[in-house]
């Protein structure tokens, strides 16, 4: 075996063997690599010298009434790509998913997408109106909403339909934050949407909702009544605290498993009607242009998708030997039932270990613990959901959708890990 061996399996022992052979070590087994760990030439001053933080007092309990991450985590931030949009008020930034673990996205790094900037609304001045085909049009204050019985807490992913939209024509952006970072996953607190709809009383011909935001874009989307009565929520909290302003404070709608654009923030009005409204965001945008010039509309559900977040271009491999490959999987159609990982560009696959809950319409975390011998890898992941849907290759997706769809790109991502550990966004045959 040599450096050109196909790394077809993530089996720990076989990768280990390949690595050892490449290093011309004849002994087999994991112990040999562990023994190869170099002895330090001299004592480590981090250990032998008394550090400032070990001697002097640190800040007291009043230094940070609302805590922030350690200053050493300053690079764990949302980032935008300036040239994508004309200005920052109607724009997008990206969640640093390569820096996160588990399944919950911290509130401060949840990606943002605004159409008229962040509305800053005093909750005492916020109102929710329900009108249209209802028995009694109503107006609620935030206090009213928080007095409803039947409050619920639910974890859901929110993915922008344009997540990966820049990658339809080929590999473009060299970082998982930019190729897959239009997603976040938090616990929402609120009440089922049907609770407030029931309060107004939907007339029998009420088949659609128009949900509207109070921002400078007065964002609107049409939602079919079946979804509204099924699992939609109106939420005022995320991860245990009030919604962040950029996520719709004081109130947003939660539309589980469906494209993020429908999760209208700063929710101020729900109208009941008998037809969809054909708003700008559901006609000129968020419709999927296919190769034949026709376009799918009402493509609400987010198909099953996954991506390896480490290694990835922003998180290259730095060490031979033990490494942790990890990533995220999700589906708008149900729960993630399995995630497969390949290191040979999709020739061979092995099921990853899912850790933590695999809940419906929620991010799911997977791991593959492996030893790396310095061989080039082509890493992919492939999600399967509880409906039996298998995440398609980009090739298979393009065959149906062409290159101009922009939205709903859930094709399998490939990361090329070079011999020096550098990791790159590539497309492969």
């Amino acid at each position: 075996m040599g450096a050109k061996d196909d790394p077809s399996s993530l089996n720990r022992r076989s990768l280990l063997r390949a690595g050892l052979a490449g290093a011309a070590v004849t002994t087999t087994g994991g112990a040999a690599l562990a023994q190869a760990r170099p002895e330090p030439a001299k004592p480590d001053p981090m250990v032998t010298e008394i550090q400032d933080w070990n001697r002097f007092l640190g800040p007291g309990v009043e230094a940070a009434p609302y805590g922030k991450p350690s200053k050493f985590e300053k690079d764990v931030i949302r980032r935008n790509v300036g040239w994508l949009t004309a200005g920052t008020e109607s724009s997008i930034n990206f969640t640093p998913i390569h820096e996160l673990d588990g399944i919950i996205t911290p509130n401060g790094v949840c990606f943002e997408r605004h159409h008229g900037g962040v509305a800053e609304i005093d909750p005492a001045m916020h109102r929710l109106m329900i009108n249209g085909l209802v028995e009694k049009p109503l107006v609620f204050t935030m206090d009213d909403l928080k007095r409803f019985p039947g409050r619920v807490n639910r974890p859901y992913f929110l993915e922008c339909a344009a997540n990966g939209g820049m990658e339809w024509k080929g590999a473009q952006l060299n970082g998982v934050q930019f190729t897959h970072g239009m997603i976040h996953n938090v616990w929402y607190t609120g009440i089922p949407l049907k609770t407030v709809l029931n309060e107004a009383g939907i007339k029998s011909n009420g088949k659609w909702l128009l949900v509207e935001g109070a921002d400078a874009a007065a964002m609107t989307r049409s939602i079919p009544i079946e979804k509204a009565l099924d699992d939609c929520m109106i939420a005022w909290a995320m991860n245990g605290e009030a919604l962040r302003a950029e996520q719709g404070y004081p109130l947003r709608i939660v539309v589980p498993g469906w494209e993020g654009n429908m999760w209208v923030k700063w929710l101020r009005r729900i109208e009941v009607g008998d037809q969809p409204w054909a708003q700008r965001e559901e006609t000129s945008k968020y419709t999927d242009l296919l190769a034949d010039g026709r376009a799918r509309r009402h493509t609400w559900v987010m198909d099953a998708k996954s991506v390896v977040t480490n290694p990835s271009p922003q998180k290259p491999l730095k060490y031979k030997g033990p490494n942790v490959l990890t990533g995220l999987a999700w589906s708008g159609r149900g729960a993630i039932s399995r995630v497969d990982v390949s290191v040979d560009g999709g020739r061979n696959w092995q099921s990853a270990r899912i850790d933590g809950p695999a809940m419906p319409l929620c991010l799911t975390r997977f791991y593959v613990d492996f030893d790396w011998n310095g061989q080039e890898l082509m890493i992919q992941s492939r999600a399967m959901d509880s409906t039996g849907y298998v995440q398609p290759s980009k090739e298979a997706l393009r065959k149906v959708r062409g290159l101009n769809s922009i939205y709903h790109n859930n094709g399998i991502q490939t990361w090329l890990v070079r011999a020096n550990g550098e990791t790159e966004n590539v497309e492969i045959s």
Partner: protein
Amino acid sequence: MSRFRNIARAFGLVVALTGQALPQAAQPQPAKVGLGRAALPEEIKAWDIDVRPDGLGAPVGKGTVKKGEELFLAQCAACHGEFGEAVGRWPVLVGGRGSLKADSPEKTIGSYWPDASTVFDYIRRAMPFGNARSLSDDDVYALTAFLLNMNEVVKDDFVLTNENIATVKMPNASAFYEDDRTTAEKHFWAEACMKNCKTGEVRVTGHARVIDVTPDGKSGPRVE
């Protein structure tokens, strides 16, 4: 199963005997809680500004192409360009007809949008960018008429009104169809191949074009 049925039956019996359901049980229409207050007609009028393709919601009013052109040059051209061709990366509003199958489709009001009502509705609720709700309904009719005219949907002397907005036929209206992924992409519900899924060498066919988005991407990582 049978045990569950028994419990359910017992529960039903309790309801029948007491004549009062326990909270959240056996009631298809839950009782109203009594929160919130009636929305007044003036309040609904203030917020309910949406306009549907069939004209529902269109306020009484009208606007000419000529008036729309004046307004457009004053209020819109700074971002959208004098002819709707766009400045920088702001949205292109005019042209693009016949480009939807091209490598770079130009999705404009004329080439893509299926409904004229959407133009009116969107300008009325969100434009001008940064000064929303500042135009009168007649101004919005005029701007919509101008944009439809620039896109060769209506003639120069057209007057758009609440009476005729639903009759404007958009060139690309017939190109939209409902999400058919569960049938057109049925083959994505399949068994997943695990071994020897590709024949021949797997080659890299494309690299990320934009690499400067990565903060410290210029220096290669060091492998120890």
